[in-house]
């Protein structure tokens, strides 16, 4: 049987609840993992859809920019070929961008439920935290570099920065919870032995 909590403290034939401080903290950390893991999944979907939306709405501008760059070389490509390449990149971005976040999210949820301990999602989370940080740094740099003027970065940049900050906080909290969960689980295993 797959039991999350197989503590059965039998005292005089009675089964008692396990409310030791470590157990309570473990449950809290596991619940946090599940909540944050779900949040990362949803945020991942949003991020990827947002990127694809920007790509789709600005596709003509992007094609024109690529054409302008390509014309300076001797390569001859049609607009349709450029669009095809863009579509290919979009699909790859969708798959890999979403996959990475789904690995993180589902692994966090699985560890929160006590089902399995993933190895790859922790370093992947660290990578995303660094990427988010760099993206935020870039955004702040753009704002500071532009200064108060008519060319001020758009609202979408500010929203993106807020989302990135949220994502960074969630992933940091996830790492902290994973650490707590593994520590308390190790304590439990030592107690059982």
């Amino acid at each position, binding site marked *: *049987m*797959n*039991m*999350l*909590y*197989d503590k*059965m403290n*039998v005292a005089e*034939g009675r*089964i*008692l*609840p*396990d*409310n030791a401080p470590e157990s*309570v*903290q473990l*449950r*809290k950390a596991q*619940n946090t993992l*599940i909540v944050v893991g779900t949040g990362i999944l949803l945020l991942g979907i949003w991020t990827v859809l947002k990127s694809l939306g920007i790509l789709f709405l600005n596709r003509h501008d992007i094609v024109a920019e690529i054409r302008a760059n390509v014309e300076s070389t001797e390569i001859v490509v049609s607009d349709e070929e450029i669009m095809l390449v863009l579509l290919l990149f979009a699909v790859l971005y969708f798959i890999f961008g979403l996959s990475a976040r789904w690995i993180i999210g589902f692994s966090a949820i699985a560890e929160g*439920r006590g089902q399995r301990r993933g190895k790859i999602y922790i370093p992947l989370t660290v990578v995303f935290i660094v990427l988010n940080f760099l993206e935020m740094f870039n955004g702040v740099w753009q704002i500071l570099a532009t200064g108060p003027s008519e060319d001020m970065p758009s609202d979408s940049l500010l929203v993106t920065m807020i989302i990135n900050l949220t994502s960074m906080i969630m992933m940091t909290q996830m790492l902290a919870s994973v650490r707590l969960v593994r520590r308390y689980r190790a304590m439990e295993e030592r107690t059982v032995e």
Partner: protein
Amino acid sequence: MQLDFHYYGTYCAAMIAGYSHEESVQVAYCAQFVDCCSGTFLAKIGGPAAAATTQLQLELMDANTDPVGLQNITRIWASFHFLPNNLYSERKGCSKRYLRKYRLLCDVNSELLPDTVELARGKGPEAAGLAMHVLADTWAHRYFAGTPSLVINNTNYHFTEIVPAEDGFTERPVRFNHNPTAPDDLETGVFVNTVYQGSEHSVMNLGHGRAGHLPDYSFARYRYMPAWAEYREIIKDNPSDYMHAFQQMVYALQCLKDGVLFQLDQYAAEAVRPWEDKIREILEKRQMDACADWKSFGEQLSGCEIPDFSDEAYVEEYMAAGPEEKDDTFLGRFILAALAQKSMVTNRIYSSGSPLAGISVDFGKEGFRGIRDFRRLVTARSRTVGPAPEAGMLRSAGQEQEAARAEDRNREEAAHD
């Protein structure tokens, strides 16, 4: 709790408490009728809507969850099915809004329970039956609140059932589905509960909906983590709780019958002892409906046949009565008892500083105002059935024991002389 315990179980408790077969049937009928007296039923018979003691699923689906609607829901469920345990409990680090809901948590030996039982004194089997329903539900529905609240009543994946095994007990995860038409599967541990709703005041988060019917199964033992418990888990031992409920019902009915003041945390264990094994066997048997077993036990106790429950049994009498005579009918007395209970609980919740059950007016000080249906509480004549003990004659259990010892001493001295 279900019909098996509310009707047949209460019948058995009344018989053990010394009531006659007819009285026991009436007490048991009213105990079960609390789960039937909905607004729809009252509209059908022309009764006062404010006397509703329950809400049907369809009524809840249509119920408003604005503040007034929530007050209406809370008034019904907190008064009859989830009697608040401690309206002045404290909890650190929470908002006043949360604390009000936390204080509505139902638990056993509530500070409101003596008032519930005393409201039934001298009011006949109808009021006694209603009080027994409230008392019994405090055991089954403990740790839930009679108000729609996600942060109080929610449960999650941390839910396991403790089932008997060869060498004691074993645990298995409970799986919930949300199909209300599908029966619970006791073999595989699949139960129906209300669907998760993130909205705080959704009716899906009322009472023990998120735990399904598990609190109402007398055999169930389970471990879970209620939302209010801050990640602490609770083990609910229904066989033990139901046995306590039964013993406390017998004690309460004895108090009502014998003119003794009801006290908390007292149980008629000695009176129940001759049948304890039989009752425990019924409670622990894994079956969704224990009516047959309880009925058989009840008929064994009384030697009489217990009629099947029908919510239409007294409708004709009520509908045929004139406006001035309705309060003297069986349903009329039940309705008065329901209004009195609802009024008492609402008043106590309001007096504690919580508006969750609505505003309560002291009729004695401010005269009648508010919901018109409650006027009959003010104008109804006090009724007693049999010799009505006056307040000064009520004796506490301790005084009873002292009087019995004094009697024994007198008898011994007389015999010695």
